[in-house]
């Protein structure tokens, strides 16, 4: 926080005035009101459609903008172009078959979606995941988070002007995707989660390669910060732009890095720990100016924290089974199916009958890279869920664009939309 002050090149009106350097809620609201003041004298309004094929709309998000010159007067968002009816599909499939569907939700962090779904099913069944399984889930989850944030940075900076960082970020993301392909078998659509743990154990040589990549990535983050953090143009384009106070975040259910940049240290990995997050200590990245610039700072800190988590998980990786062995509810291990007949019977039972799930409903939320993703499952006791609802962060971030952007300018809409990290697979389900 201290460096926040010495870079006097920041636009003077954004200087924090509170005693501890952190702007109070009223101060943030006053800054937001300043950018809304452009709306008072609106002349003739022109409507443009930042349509589904727009280069910086991160997928098929459509926003109809009413412009007065360059200032945005009104926004009418429109989503649903990537709606695949995931919830209807899930109602026709057993709990094992739903796993490959979930990683198509937020396709930039596939495994995290598997993980969220498996946590909800395990909570519904009351199933205990063995320690090694939880550690592997944490490692894979954090690798997905790193990949997601690096891609976010590349696209965010490309929206501000140059393609250079897009290529640089995608090159660094390649190392993480390599690791995920080695671990799970696919770069994006991992389908690596299983009810009761993970599909396979860590392959040999993964430990060495993972440590090499984890030591290499913080240097890359240092380089990104060296270029972007003190860049005068990034100051002008990001400081004091798109302010969203914590009150707005609660009202519009905006969570994740956007909420943490508004001064609220809310992180489900700390508040409602799951997998191995309670056994690994890490800090929650928090900033206080609630603008695009602070969302960048929060995400860079999160990449560093994720690297730390993965390193700690690798250091204290326990032995033992990586998936729960419970005849009635989990898929058997492939090795056992080929050898002993009991596992083969369990195999047939799980595929034809499906897992036994008690009647009841459950809601489990985890910390996805873009925000809090909650899974609501209502089961009537059968092998197929009666109703599943994926409460994905981008759905609500896409809805929160109007209050975020009104009063700002067109080129700010692009920067703000990128800063809240909306991905349409997540948003339209």
């Amino acid at each position, binding site marked *: 926080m201290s460096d926040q002050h010495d870079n006097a090149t920041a636009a003077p009106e954004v200087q924090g005035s509170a005693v501890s350097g952190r702007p109070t809620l009223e101060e943030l609201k006053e800054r937001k009101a300043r950018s809304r003041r452009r709306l008072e004298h609106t002349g003739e309004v*022109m*409507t*443009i459609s930042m349509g589904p094929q*727009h*280069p*910086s709309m991160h997928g098929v998000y459509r926003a109809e903008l009413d*412009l007065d010159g*360059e200032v945005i007067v009104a926004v009418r968002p429109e989503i649903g172009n990537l709606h695949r009816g995931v919830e209807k599909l899930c109602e026709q499939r057993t709990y094992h078959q739903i796993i490959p569907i979930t990683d198509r939700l937020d396709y930039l962090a596939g495994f995290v979606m598997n993980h969220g779904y498996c946590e909800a099913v395990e909570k519904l069944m009351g199933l205990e995941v063995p320690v090694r399984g939880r550690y592997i889930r944490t490692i894979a989850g954090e690798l997905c988070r790193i990949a997601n944030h690096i891609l976010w940075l590349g696209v965010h*900076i*490309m*929206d*501000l*002007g*140059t*393609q*250079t960082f*897009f*290529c*640089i970020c995608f*090159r660094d993301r390649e190392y993480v995707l390599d690791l995920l392909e080695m671990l799970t078998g696919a770069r994006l659509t991992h389908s690596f989660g299983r009810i009761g743990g993970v599909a396979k154990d860590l392959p040999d040589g993964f430990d060495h390669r993972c440590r090499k990549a984890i030591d290499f990535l913080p240097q890359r983050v240092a380089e990104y910060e060296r270029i972007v953090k003190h*860049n005068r*143009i*990034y100051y*002008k*384009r990001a400081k004091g732009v798109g302010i969203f106070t914590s009150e707005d975040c609660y009202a519009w259910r905006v969570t994740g890095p956007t909420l943490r940049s508004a001064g609220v240290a809310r992180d489900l990995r700390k508040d409602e720990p799951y997998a191995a997050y309670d056994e690994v200590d890490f800090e929650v990245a928090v900033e206080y100016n609630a603008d695009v610039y602070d969302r960048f700072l929060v995400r860079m800190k999160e990449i560093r924290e994720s690297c730390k988590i993965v390193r700690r998980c690798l250091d204290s990786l326990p032995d033992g089974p990586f998936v729960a062995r419970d005849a009635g509810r989990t898929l058997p291990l492939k090795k056992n199916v080929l050898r002993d007949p009991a596992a083969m019977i369990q195999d047939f039972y799980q595929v034809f009958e499906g897992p036994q799930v008690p009647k009841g409903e459950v809601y489990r939320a985890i910390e996805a890279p873009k925000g809090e993703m909650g899974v609501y499952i209502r089961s009537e006791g059968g092998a197929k869920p009666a109703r599943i609802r994926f409460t994905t962060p981008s759905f609500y971030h896409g809805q929160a664009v109007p209050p975020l952007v009104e009063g700002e*300018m*067109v*080129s*700010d*809409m*692009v920067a703000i939309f990128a800063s809240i990290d909306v991905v349409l697979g997540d948003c339209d389900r």
Partner: protein
Amino acid sequence: MSDPVAQFVFLLIKAILMPVLIIMMVAFIIYFERKFAGFFQGRVGPTYLGPWGSLQSFGDIFKLLSKEDLIPTRADKPVFRLAPYIAFIPAFLVMAVLPFGPVSEETYLFGYQFDYVIANFDTGLVLFLAMGAIAVYGVVLAGWSSNNNYSLLGGLRAGAQMISYELAMGFSVVGVMVMAGSLNLVAIVDGQAGNFWDWYFIPQVVGGLIFFIATIAELNRTPFDLPEAEQELVAGHLTEYSGMRWGMFYFAEYVNLVVISGIVATLYFGGWRAPFEVLDFIPGPIWLLVKICLLVFLYMWVRWTIFRYRYNQLMSIGWKVLLPLAILNLVVTAIVVNVVG
């Protein structure tokens, strides 16, 4: 042949040779821009057409020629067709006043007196500023005539951006004029005779920087490429253009780039003069070519590194920062030249 006929023949050759040379240069600069863009981003750039992909720009041209050339139905067709030419032709005119070698009575070529400039124009600098202003019409008319909201926004931005940066450019150039004592580019280059420390970019550092920044805005290149900001306005004023018509605009941008780096070389880096006296045996045009290439490389380097300003920040920089600094620089130069000179 008598002298006037020889002069006329020389003029014809120069007038034909210059555009052909520029078009050849532009074709290669387009290729180098894509190649260097790749290198700056850690990737390789085009490699398939020709050795190291060198025929890529000819591949582009054939692709553009074969592409369908759409004109929107409700577009203002005559203006829509005229816009690329308005953007394309002024750049060539400026090349006429650019000296690429010694201009004096005793320089002879094939036995006839020959001066290394197409038009020894007394007010060459004013012509350059005028042509820059006309090129803006190409962009603004393109934006207006394609009857599309995005292009209108792009065109408006281009108009506003040019006005605010032309002033800064004009004032910063006057500093050079005061030092050289004349508007004629030939006289300016003669004023920079001698080694590289006699060039004007050393006394005129502030003026030179302002001029460089203003030319980036003139060329619509990255920190100030708001008119065709792909991320915001899809393609700005070029949204409705396709095929060879779009190619004309793309070509015009690079011709402008070559011409303006020529002007910057002439005004601040001693035109066709060698950096050291002893290297004078290498002919003038070679030096001008080397300087143009280095400056074009610098423009590319700036383009692939720096983000883009927001529209109102761009205007405020133009009016609140560059213009006062340019005037200050002019005043200081005038005082120094009169007191010391």
